[in-house]
């Protein structure tokens, strides 16, 4: 981890603009141990008032959560200063697009290089110009609609997060996302920021040009520093750090610019505010809509409950649509009823696309809208959670992969090539439950967050004997044998010859398990179904044989073959495997073990440790091994569902900080409302821990050390250390198997065309 980052990070929004980054490279140096890191944290925190930080402020919105007391030192620092100074502008919403340079009528990102369109905004009475890429978009009257969609009105109502964050924190978080670019005097006004995808330059520029007055061309609209109304305890620091006159300058600049643009923006703003059209945008950020706006919305879909307040109140909406704007899936509400909403989303996407850019996200006061475009599909997440854009994007990818796992990428693109406005719901009819359950899992299964699989905690000997059984029960074209109990991996055996360089991705396994979990039909009989493992090969089908080995349906055997005709052969494998398990009694031991909870955090023997998640990255043979993690039962303070969710939200937050693209951290000591958390990532592991609130930083480190010792001791039980494989080593006893293996490979490559992208 970089020293500099640690501190700066606090000031600079970690999730402010995902693309912003790299600016701080100059002050990064490799940190040694975590302890060192910690020290650095505290030390550096105080030192933060340096110029760099100040400069950076404008484009970060500082996201620092007050509760995260970094050792009581100054993590908060300078970046917040700008916010404090601007208190006049309470709620600004930023919509971010990514493009080579961004420019909007109301919002201009200080994109220096290609910046030529300055005057446009002023000329356009509607002030509806969004420029992305080389072109500029003028929203003349004709385009007014799409323009409006870019604007989100939100009356600054900040929702209280269940995660324990306070409203003010929330504001901070929100503020930090705002890219500095726009200015606006009107409190109600929302800013639209276009962030370009390939905007390295832009970012750099922004950073180097911290103060608007310095770098921004006259014509350019003035950058506005994000405003935060909440002043943390650090405010005083900030002031000290930021010279008063500089601050004033900032303000002045803003004022000037706003004056200059006043006519435009004012008119636009007024229009927007007055016009019901604006408010009726079915998009997002509407939870605080004014009454008349909701009326308008209601009239749009009068009969549908998608207009209901409850519908809007959902924490996370997920929409999937086709490039033609046809609804494919919505987490809540009927897709039909949402078709106009989805049309607007598509308008946004294609609007930005025309400029050879790609819309990535929109930030409003309390929501994030994240777009992912994958082939002919567009996925949109509208959420009020504190998750980072990166995390939301990842979730959307899971949704995409789940769709792919049912249809394959190749067939989806084929379908849409043939018929652009195909209604994919025809093919996905009946699969909504699978997507629903995936989205529910995303909210509570850390495996998705960590990109790792949780193994059932088992004595190594039992796991080995089960693996050996699976290794023996094979047939031609069988590629994976996976034994799963209660959605936790028991063991996995894979065909080495076929997949020498590949391995099963955790995401594929998650999707497979979700599919199984979401289909009750699996509980009886034997299932034979095609399934695509998108991370393994997005264009080909495996044929999955799925069968439960015990009457309670907790132990499940999954056999993946590449031959669709091999049901009977694969079914026979299962019979053999089941038989051996029964003879050896291992199945019995396994099911008995399942009666208990997986394991308790008390077993670790570390006092004050409440919960943890540990993801090792040094497992032998790791490169073709599934990434795994382990985590005890949520109990004690986290026995209740809400508390569990709160903990998971905290983990998510820490995860987003650790993996921020702009300012990754290595170690975070975080004091939350009811607990103290320590998150730590090294080259060997990633660890998230939760302690009782009284644990100090030093204490936490020593407790973590104990925990790591315990994990080391138990690793054979908690993880699959030495993944079993089919052997294709030629040898006297194995010759038959070896030959079969090669046959298998041939068949796989040739006849059934799996590798030909079937």
């Amino acid at each position, binding site marked *: 981890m970089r020293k500099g980052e640690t501190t700066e990070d606090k000031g600079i929004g970690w999730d402010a603009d995902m693309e912003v980054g790299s600016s701080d490279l100059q002050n990064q140096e490799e940190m040694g141990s975590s302890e060192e890191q910690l020290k650095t944290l505290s030390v550096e925190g105080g030192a933060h008032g340096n110029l760099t930080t100040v400069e950076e402020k404008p484009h970060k919105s500082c996201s620092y959560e007050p509760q995260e007391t970094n050792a009581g030192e100054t993590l908060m620092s300078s970046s917040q200063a700008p916010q404090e100074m601007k208190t006049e502008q309470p709620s600004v919403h930023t919509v971010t697009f990514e493009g080579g340079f961004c420019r909007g009528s109301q919002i201009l990102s200080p994109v220096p290089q290609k910046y030529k369109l300055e005057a446009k905004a002023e000329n356009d009475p509607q002030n509806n110009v969004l420029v992305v890429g080389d072109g500029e978009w003028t929203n003349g009257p004709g385009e007014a609609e799409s323009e409006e969609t870019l604007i989100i009105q939100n009356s600054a109502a900040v929702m209280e997060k269940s995660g324990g964050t306070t409203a003010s924190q929330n504001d901070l978080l929100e503020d930090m996302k705002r890219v500095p670019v726009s200015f606006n005097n009107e409190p109600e006004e929302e800013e639209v920021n276009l962030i370009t995808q390939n905007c390295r330059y832009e970012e750099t520029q922004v950073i180097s040009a911290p103060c608007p007055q310095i770098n921004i061309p006259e014509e350019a609209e003035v950058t506005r520093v994000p405003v935060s109304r909440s002043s943390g305890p650090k405010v005083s620091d900030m002031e000290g750090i930021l010279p008063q006159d500089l601050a004033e300058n900032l303000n002045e600049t803003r004022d000037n610019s706003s004056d200059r643009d006043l006519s435009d923006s004012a008119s636009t703003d007024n229009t927007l505010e007055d016009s019901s059209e604006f408010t009726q945008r079915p998009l997002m950020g509407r939870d605080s809509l004014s009454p008349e706006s909701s009326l308008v919305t209601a009239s749009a879909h009068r009969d549908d409950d998608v207009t209901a307040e409850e519908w809007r109140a959902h924490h996370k909406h997920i929409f999937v649509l086709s490039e033609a704007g046809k609804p494919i899936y919505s987490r809540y509400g009927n897709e039909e009823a949402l078709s106009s909403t989805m049309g607007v989303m598509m308008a946004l996407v294609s609007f930005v696309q025309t400029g050879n850019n790609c819309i990535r996200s929109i930030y409003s006061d309390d929501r994030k809208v994240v777009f992912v475009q994958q082939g002919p599909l567009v996925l949109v997440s509208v959420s009020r959670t504190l998750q980072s854009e990166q995390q939301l994007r990842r979730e959307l990818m899971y949704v995409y992969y789940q769709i792919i796992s049912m249809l394959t990428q190749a067939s989806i693109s084929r379908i849409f090539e043939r018929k652009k406005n195909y209604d994919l719901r*025809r093919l996905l009819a009946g699969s909504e439950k699978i997507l629903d359950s995936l989205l529910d899992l995303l909210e509570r299964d850390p495996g998705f967050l960590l990109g790792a699989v949780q193994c059932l905690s088992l004595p190594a000997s039992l796991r080995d004997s089960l693996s050996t059984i699976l290794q023996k029960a094979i047939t031609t074209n069988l590629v994976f044998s996976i034994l799963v109990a209660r959605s936790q991996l028991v063991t996995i055996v894979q065909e080495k010859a076929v997949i020498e360089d590949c391995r099963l991705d955790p995401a594929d396994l998650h999707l497979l398990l979700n599919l199984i979990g979401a289909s*009750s039909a*699996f509980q*009886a009989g*034997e299932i034979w179904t095609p399934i695509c493992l998108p991370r393994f090969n997005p264009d080909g089908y495996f044929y999955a044989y799925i069968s439960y080995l015990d009457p309670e349906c907790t132990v499940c055997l999954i056999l993946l073959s590449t031959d669709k005709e091999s049901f009977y052969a694969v079914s026979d494998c299962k019979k053999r495997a089941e038989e051996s398990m029964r003879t050896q009694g291992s199945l019995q031991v396994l099911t008995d073990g399942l009666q208990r909870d997986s394991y308790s955090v008390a077993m670790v023997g570390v006092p004050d440790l409440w919960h943890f998640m540990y993801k090792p990255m040094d497992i032998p043979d790791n490169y073709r091994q599934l990434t795994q993690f382990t985590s005890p039962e949520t109990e004690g303070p986290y026995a209740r569902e809400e508390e569990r969710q709160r903990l998971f939200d905290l983990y998510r937050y820490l995860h987003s900080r650790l993996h921020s693209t702009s300012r990754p951290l290595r170690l975070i000591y975080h004091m939350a409302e009811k607990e103290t958390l320590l998150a730590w990532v090294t080259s060997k592991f990633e660890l998230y821990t939760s302690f009782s609130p009284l644990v100090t930083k030093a204490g936490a480190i020593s407790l973590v050390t104990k925990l790591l010792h315990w994990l080391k001791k138990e690793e054979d039980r908690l993880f699959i250390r030495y993944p079993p494989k089919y052997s294709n080593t030629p040898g006297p006893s194995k010759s038959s198997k070896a030959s079969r293996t090669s046959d298998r490979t041939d068949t796989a490559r040739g006849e059934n065309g799996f590798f030909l992208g079937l």
Partner: protein
Amino acid sequence: MLKKPDVKVVLLGDMNVGKTSLLHRYVEKKFHETVSTVGGAFYLKQWGPHSISIWDTAGREQFHGLGSMYCRGAAAVIFVYDVSNFQSLVELEDRFLALTDTASTDCIFAIVGNKVDLTDECASVNETEGEKPCHATTGSTAKVRKQVHVEDAVSLYKRVLKYKMLDEKEAPPAEKMCFETSAKSGFSVDFLFESVFDTVVPLLKKKANGPSETVDLTDSNKAMKGTRSGCCK
């Protein structure tokens, strides 16, 4: 070599008509809410000396391409529709009939209207049955109008035979192969499966004496070739 089941029976029909529920009712004697089937589910049923494999297929269009795979070499195909949904009957002919091209050439067909418990009128079962349906569930839910009547199924059955170029006189009579059932109440479900099995098994014996030994592979191969050449020419 592993032993394959003697007879293959396939359930086909649109999504949500109750194929899985029918099978659950028959195999487990109970009704529970199911979710959409993925791919196909395989059940093995011992019927006297024979083992009968029953394939419960997914009705979703997503899996449509696989229907022919599940049908390959089938000795009996059970078409299922929903009596309260006329479209589900139409779909049988539009989408599912062609899947049976890979079935055994002398495959028998049954046409089943499920969910009679939902409809307002008692199903007019064929007289031989003489049993009044509907009692089990009367009054439980609001009844909907029955959209499909047995006559519709009978005429579909005739069209199916025509499509398969089977002689109506040799094939089992329509009255015996059209059923109305309720997986929820259990009405007529056992009767359906047993009649189908009873019809299929004698054919099997007949065939065992003939040139081909097993139902599955040989026949399916022939069927496949037949289809393909038909297409090409």
